[in-house]
């Protein structure tokens, strides 16, 4: 009877092989510890305030905002895959759809959680909706992210209700079926919301006139960073999905999606990344030669402060931009799993580097003549909260993979015709 106590096989989809429950719990335990530490650190920040962090009035954006921008960009695979499958009818990407939703849900819920700590005063969270700063792009970001997290939660429900035990409850089963039929509507709404908030997050930096390193001109009310953020997010999202799926395949030792799906994602990611790199290059040249000089700043002075020298610019555009874009577009790369994943990882690193530069380098550089170069090292509470969000993501994904149909023919919902 002891073996039956330590088994959860009746919760696992029939025909699916999963590791034993003790091994699974062993895998989860370090992540659970990290999550517990993160929750403790977050509790300290919420209870004592932001003096627990190394941020201040000058350095108001740090590790947390970098994390937010990073995971929101990488989570773009969710809306973009939904857009491709449901709006553009690219059915070949269906095998990756469920995992895209879960990854997106984790990324956005993690981002919202960390924002709650950063903003503080969670009991006054509703203020942002009732007393918003109508002159801030963050208002639009707040509204869109809140709505999109709701959309992702609704997209997650059908997957959740397909759990082997939950699907035995008829009302859950029928609701899942009916909601699944309406998912294209949610996919369209998600696409609209994502385009706007991805763009507004970029626009947030582009409108900072007081920060010439970040300030950009653009089109009508939108600075160029608005469009660059959208492009970079939809370029890196598919790459991140490839990375997650390949990692799960490596850990589980199973082939989860056909190689053609990887090839298709690689092409999409590579093409968009190439367009992004081209746009980013033009934008950088315009900024270096027109925007910055007109504001009275010699462009190369931005790169005189170590460690933020020109190698970072080179790395962002060439090493983690042009190079992975070329690799992803090259047909031979798609056939070589190692090369493909290296390129995907480089693309994701490039986007993270871009978010880091805009968040940390922007604030570190002096703007006024009496300003000094600022350095910022996050406190352990910031790092622990950061780690907690990563642990949360790993735990949620691990549980989803174990108990929900994320991949394959059984994974993709088989809906019968009628009603």
């Amino acid at each position, binding site marked *: 009877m002891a073996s039956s106590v330590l088994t959860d096989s009746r919760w696992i989809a029939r025909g699916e092989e999963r590791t034993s429950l003790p091994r699974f719990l062993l895998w989860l335990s370090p992540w659970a510890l990290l999550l517990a530490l993160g929750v403790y650190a977050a509790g300290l920040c919420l209870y004592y305030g932001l003096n627990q962090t190394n941020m201040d009035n000058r350095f108001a954006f740090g590790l947390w905002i970098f994390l937010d921008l990073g995971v929101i960009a990488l989570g773009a695979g969710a809306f973009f895959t939904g857009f491709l499958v449901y709006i553009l009818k690219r059915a070949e990407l269906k095998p990756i759809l469920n995992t895209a939703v879960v990854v997106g849900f984790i990324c956005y819920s993690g981002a919202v959680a960390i924002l709650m700590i950063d903003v503080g005063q969670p009991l006054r969270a509703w203020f942002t909706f009732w*007393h918003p700063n109508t002159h801030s792009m963050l208002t639009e970001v707040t509204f869109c992210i809140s709505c999109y997290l*709701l*959309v992702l939660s609704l997209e997650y429900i059908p997957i959740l209700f397909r759990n082997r035990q939950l699907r035995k409850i008829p009302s859950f089963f029928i609701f899942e*079926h009916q909601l699944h039929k309406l998912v294209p*509507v949610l996919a369209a*709404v998600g696409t609209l919301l994502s385009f706007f908030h991805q763009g507004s997050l970029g626009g947030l930096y582009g409108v900072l006139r007081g920060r010439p390193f970040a300030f950009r001109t653009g089109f009508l009310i939108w600075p160029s960073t608005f469009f660059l953020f959208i492009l970079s997010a939809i370029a890196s999202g598919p790459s991140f999905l490839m990375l997650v799926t390949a990692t799960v395949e490596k850990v589980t030792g199973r082939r989860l999606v056909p190689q053609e799906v990887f090839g298709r994602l690689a092409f999409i990611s590579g093409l968009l990344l190439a367009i992004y790199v081209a746009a980013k290059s033009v934008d950088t040249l315009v900024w270096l030669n027109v925007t910055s000089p007109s504001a009275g700043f010699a462009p190369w002075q931005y790169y005189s402060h170590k460690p933020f020298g020109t190698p970072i610019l080179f790395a962002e555009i060439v090493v983690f931009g042009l190079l992975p874009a070329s690799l992803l577009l090259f047909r031979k790369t798609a056939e070589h799993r190692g090369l493909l994943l290296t390129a995907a990882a480089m693309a994701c690193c490039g986007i993270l580097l871009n978010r880091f530069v805009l968040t940390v380098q922007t604030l570190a550089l002096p703007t006024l003549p009496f300003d000094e170069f600022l350095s910022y090292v996050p406190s352990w509470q910031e790092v622990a909260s950061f780690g907690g969000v990563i642990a949360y993501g790993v735990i949620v994904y691990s549980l989803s993979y174990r108990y929900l149909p994320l991949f394959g023919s059984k994974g993709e919902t*088989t809906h019968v015709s*009628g009603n």
Partner: protein
Amino acid sequence: MFPGIDGFHWTFGHILFLSLFLVVAATIFATVISAVWRTARDFRTRQAIDFCWKANFSELPISERRCRHELAGRVISRTCDNAFDCRHCAKYSQFAVLPATGHASSLGLDYPNDRFYHRGHTWVRPEEDGNVTVGLDDLAEHLVGNPDSIQLPGVGDQIDISQTAWRMKKNGREIAVRAPIEGEIVELGGPTKGWFLKVRPRLDTTNPLTFRHLLTGPEVHGWISREMERLQLQLRTPNTPPALADGGTLVPELMNAVPEADWDTVLAETFLEA
């Protein structure tokens, strides 16, 4: 920002932004409400019951969805696409007239000819009073033996074809037994009586169409021999190559006799759970 807040003044930007936001929020809200309403409608019109079984059926392994005519040897290979409801199968009559070539061996199990069999291992026996008796077939009885507990429906309750008729528990595992016929429960039995339910069928039992979805004659032997093959493969010692035993009979209380087997899978496939 909103009216009632000090210093608030409407601008075109406010109206545009709020309108867009409200449209998005209303769309999300309407989507959820629509899904809830459709779910309630499906339950109200009993479509939900039919849908649950059809969805479950579509996810069964192909080996469990073989057509009755294949089991009887009338056709070489055919997968059922009617959720085992031959009453709505356009091809039924076309194949039913063909001669059955399947062999009939006893396999050591008792499958009397006076009853009809459902793929979920239940049987139906028409009675003289117009009611039918429903019980668990011999293979299922060998598997489960004496259940630890049984949860029967109440007298007067309605059951529907391929929906859960009653539940049993054995060694901590719950088994949902599918109903072989639709109708109203008129009497309750149990393992000691050799049957579980007496049912007043919704349809006329003198009409052959009422039992058409159930297996009979050579189909039963073809079906049971495949079920036995499946069981032998599933109950073999772990990490041993598949081998089919020739001869021999099932021992009673198999769940107790082979406790190390993957009973979740065995029970799911036996009682048609996806």
